[in-house]
């Protein structure tokens, strides 16, 4: 059977993915699939120590091994870099000391991967071991300092925000409660491990094909690390096998591949093993949190104080942003009189943490929603009713100065309440079964870029050719979420042409206008708006050309399908014909558009984290059964509602909701980037770090709610990250409902549940 050729569909019938055919036939090329002529293979030499001074690196043995082309070590090889402008603390290859097990120390290039690997194993590095630093928030003087960039000791960054008078709000509250939660860190586990090919060409240009979500930032950082002008670095992204935040900055293997290529004059491929991915990490921070909230007599939030302590790992990465994010979005769901946030991020000798789907908002949301459930219990209120009393309304400004436009939050609450038969069933299930609720919200793109600049966040260039084809160039990166499809479909819709006319060039820094990257759920919002601007420009060129040709005013020109016509005038011309008229008049046709979000309302320090052109909203009810004998939390069903504004590609939106929910389920039940007391990862492989299999996933009922957002392209908001957030606290709340035990740590593995039940059994026996 033939695949329903997506190219033949009209723009109205949205295909799931314009590139599905390549992915189902094995034709799609990922970073490790592309064979360059004369390519060499690289392998990183990593530290077996979690924290140690480097006394010496001996590359001699490795250099003499068969097939070895180049061997390099840290000192003098590259300049420091980092994703945050104020945190340039990383070297591609460690200089002087190593600060996590797995940190790259040297790199080898050889004729084959086998030879590179064997040589890397032969490199001898002499270390002087230092004490590992494993705990965040432990200002013990005796512990060695991990990074010189620390504020004091191993404190990387402390931030404070206060809006309104929290002390008074708490003091005068008619009811107040404090809760704590430790949220375990976890990894993205994109199925595709990172891979790169870099070629330092003899002409000085450096061409890089890398599995990254952010080619623009990789280009910038790589140029800095290599000490070359940015225009000499070209970053291209092949088909990307998932990101989830784990491929959102420059990594050592990317720098090392370029350095090795310069040494051996050949393209160099470095592909990470699954183990390497767990060391490269940048996953969700482990966070210890405390929240205290005071309510008035009507059960409305009078004041909230939130504290988070993040275990950052060995480098800054996105950490400063992550820290602010743990305090940023509590007020987007709940209106409150006053709000205070204190956050700290600490350096430890573990792989660096960074952004993962829900960046920094997932952990506090888990505690906040568990807290709201406990408040409801104390106050004798239905948990959903308590939320309803406190919802932040649409078209409002939050206590921390965030502008909310559309909000489907109330509709999300209604939807999951209805789908789960909440009113009929909650509180009436037998022991061992429970329903739990939670809601959340997320950004549709960060309001500010990572480094300050006044330039567009996203740019699109549209060329229309005399063959009638439409070429759209944009720096956006399709990480598997369907960004290319959204761009193509929007282009077809905006220009009023069949999808088959549209060709894309994306994820290439040399041939496309900059898009900042696939992070913060920004692509549909920002590339979409840039596309609409460019398309409008192009349409006006074509409309004017038709108007000139027909000698009518431009306003008289209308569209009928792809055709241009004059209402009531009888003139009519096909798309390609009008394109040719325009090219004859104007020369080759090109139009561009950019998008920059409105500046944030807040002017305080830290106000750059949290603002967004629009917020998505989500809610979840989890239905669980907890087995008393084996401790298993079986999630029997999830009900998830999400407000993505206008879903531009309904099938993709559903896919994001389901995928996000299941990733949340994994975080709630099994995933842990955890370490032994000596700093060793508990299991840097897929048996030691477990993600849900097809047998661990319940049926999920999905509802899409909401209305077109005025800031979104054709009304769209995000769907890629938001739906993950409510799942974790919904499961936690359901488990509490099922067994009556409050668990204060994630994930809810069966051993943890069994121990909690055993503790209670012993307490009851006493």
């Amino acid at each position, binding site marked *: 059977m033939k695949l329903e050729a997506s190219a033949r569909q009209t723009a109205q019938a949205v295909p799931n993915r314009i590139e599905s055919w390549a992915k189902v036939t094995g034709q799609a090329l990922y970073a490790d699939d592309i064979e360059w002529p004369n390519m060499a293979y690289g392998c990183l030499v990593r530290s077996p120590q979690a924290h140690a001074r480097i006394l010496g690196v001996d590359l001699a043995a490795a250099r003499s091994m068969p097939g070895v082309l180049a061997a390099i070590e840290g000192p003098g090889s590259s300049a420091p870099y980092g994703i945050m402008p104020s945190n340039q603390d990383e070297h591609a290859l460690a200089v002087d000391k190593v600060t996590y097990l797995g940190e790259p120390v040297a790199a080898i290039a050889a004729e084959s991967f086998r030879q590179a690997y*064997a040589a890397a194993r032969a490199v001898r590095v002499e270390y002087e071991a230092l004490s590992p630093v494993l705990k965040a928030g432990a200002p013990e003087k005796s512990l060695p300092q991990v990074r010189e960039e620390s504020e004091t000791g191993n404190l990387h960054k402390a931030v404070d925000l206060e809006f309104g008078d929290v002390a008074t709000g708490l003091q005068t509250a008619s009811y107040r409660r404090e809760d704590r939660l430790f949220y375990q860190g976890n990894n993205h586990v994109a199925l595709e491990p990172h891979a790169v090919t870099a070629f330092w060409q003899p002409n000085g240009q450096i061409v890089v094909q890398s599995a990254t979500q952010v080619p623009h930032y990789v280009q910038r950082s790589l140029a800095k690390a290599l000490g070359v002008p940015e225009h000499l670095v070209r970053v291209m992204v092949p088909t990307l096998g998932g990101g989830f935040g784990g491929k959102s900055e420059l990594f050592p293997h990317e720098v090392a591949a370029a350095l090795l290529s310069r040494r051996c004059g050949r393209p160099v491929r470095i592909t990470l093993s699954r183990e390497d991915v767990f060391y490269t990490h940048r996953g969700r921070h482990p966070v210890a949190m405390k929240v205290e909230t005071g309510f008035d007599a009507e059960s409305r939030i009078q004041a909230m104080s939130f504290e988070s302590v993040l275990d950052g790992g060995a480098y800054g990465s996105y950490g400063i942003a992550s820290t602010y994010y743990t305090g940023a979005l509590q007020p987007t769901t709940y209106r409150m009189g006053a709000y205070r946030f204190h956050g700290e991020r600490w350096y430890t000798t573990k792989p660096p943490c960074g952004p993962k789907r829900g960046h920094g908002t997932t952990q506090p949301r888990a505690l906040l929603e568990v807290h709201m459930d406990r408040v409801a219990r104390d106050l004798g209120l239905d948990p959903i009713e308590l939320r309803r009393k406190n919802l932040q309304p649409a078209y409002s400004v939050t206590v921390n100065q965030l502008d909310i436009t559309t909000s489907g939050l109330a509709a999300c609450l209604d939807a999951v309440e209805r789908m789960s038969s909440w009113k009929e069933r909650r509180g009436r299930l037998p022991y061992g079964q429970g329903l739990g609720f939670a809601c959340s919200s997320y950004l549709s793109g960060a309001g500010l870029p990572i480094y300050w600049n006044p330039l567009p966040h996203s740019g699109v260039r549209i060329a229309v050719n005399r063959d009638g084809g439409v070429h759209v160039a944009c720096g956006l990166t399709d990480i598997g979420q369907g960004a290319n499809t959204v761009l193509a479909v929007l282009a077809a819709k905006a220009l009023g042409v069949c999808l088959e006319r549209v060709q894309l060039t994306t994820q290439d820094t040399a041939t496309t206008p900059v898009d900042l990257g696939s992070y913060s759920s920004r692509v549909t919002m920002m590339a979409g708006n840039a596309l609409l601007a460019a398309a409008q420009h192009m349409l006006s060129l074509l409309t004017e050309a038709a108007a000139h040709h027909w000698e009518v005013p431009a306003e008289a020109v209308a569209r009928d399908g792809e055709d241009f016509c004059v209402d009531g005038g009888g003139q009519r011309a096909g798309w390609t014909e009008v394109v040719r008229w325009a090219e004859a008049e104007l020369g080759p046709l090109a139009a561009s558009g950019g998008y920059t979000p409105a500046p944030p309302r807040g002017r305080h320090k830290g106000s750059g984290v949290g603002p967004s052109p629009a917020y998505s909203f989500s809610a979840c009810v989890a239905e669980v059964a907890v087995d008393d004998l084996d401790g298993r939390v079986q999630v029997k069903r999830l009900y998830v509602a999400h407000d993505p504004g206008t879903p531009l590609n309904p099938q993709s939106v559903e896919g994001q909701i389901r995928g996000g929910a299941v990733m949340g389920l994994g975080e709630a039940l099994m995933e842990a980037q955890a370490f032994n007391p000596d700093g060793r990862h508990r299991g*840097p492989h897929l048996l030691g770090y*477990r993600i849900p299999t097809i*047998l661990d996933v319940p049926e999920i009922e999905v509802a899409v709610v909401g209305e077109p957002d005025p800031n979104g392209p054709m009304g769209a908001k995000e769907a890629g990250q938001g739906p993950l957030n409510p799942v974790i606290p919904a499961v936690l709340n359901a488990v509490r409902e099922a067994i009556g035990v409050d668990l204060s740590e994630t994930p809810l593995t*069966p051993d*943890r549940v069994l*121990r909690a039940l055993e503790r209670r059994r012993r307490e009851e026996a006493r």
Partner: protein
Amino acid sequence: MMPLRPLAVVTPRGEEELLRSLAVEGAVPLGGGSDLIPGLSWELASGDALVSLAGVPALRRTDALADGSVCLGAAVTLAEVARHPLILGAYPALADAARAVGSWELRAQGTIGGNVCLATRCRFRNQPPLWRDALQTCYQSGGDVCHAAPASRTCVAILSGDTVPALAALGAQLEIWGHAARRLPIEDFYSGDGAHHISLAKGELLAAIHLPADPPTAAFRKWRARESIDFPEANAAVSAVWREGAWRAPRVFVSAVGPAPVRVVAAEALLDGADWSEDLLRAAGELARKAVHPYDNGQLNVAGRQIAVRGLVARALGDLQNARRERGL
């Protein structure tokens, strides 16, 4: 990925050639390879010559013998065990255990012999080479320390084959080929030392598994983190014979809590001929919990693993009761 070191693959076609190949220094039997190959790439296992069992027809047969017993060749895949009519008919607990191993593909590749001989696992050893590079060599790697149990004089790595307790509960015997063929009950096959966990001399091979005629009713239960792929964090199998209105000759085995399966004699004594009330089954489970002493070298927490044993045994015993009721006894 981490490439394998150079080695030879030998594929003998007959029994004599097989035994000759295995007698060579550095020869290692290769069943399905689903555990051995990653073990080699992580430098957990070593071998100069992998001797494939796949080409020896005698090792791939499932035969019903004249005395009513069944002989399973060591190279029969777990998928075949799980769906074979002879096994489903008389030894359903073994089919359950085989189906609990790994995933669909791993069962299509992995063999019953490989599962019985499966290398023991430990969270402080079953890690990639870099992870272990700066760690003192442990007993299993030829060193003299145990990272999981510093006070232990031997390796405490975990026996992780799911079919082991099921076969033990069924009273299976192992047929060993070597200088002289021998047979032994499966529970005598495991030494209790995780570093040399099975009693096979150089050149010897587990060739077949004999399942008894008129087997007892048996049941198998597994506890792990996920519903698929994962090795057991604890497993259990029980069997008994329903005779004259009561369960007789119960056998209770717990495994994946140490280097060898644990036979819970106290529970067997409690259960033999008694009225199997819910409380009694719980009590038997509690005896099993007390009888095992896992170390913190699995994926899940050690206290949880021990507590889970109670439920596994109680549930498996409950499965026997259900099987009896289904048969109208």
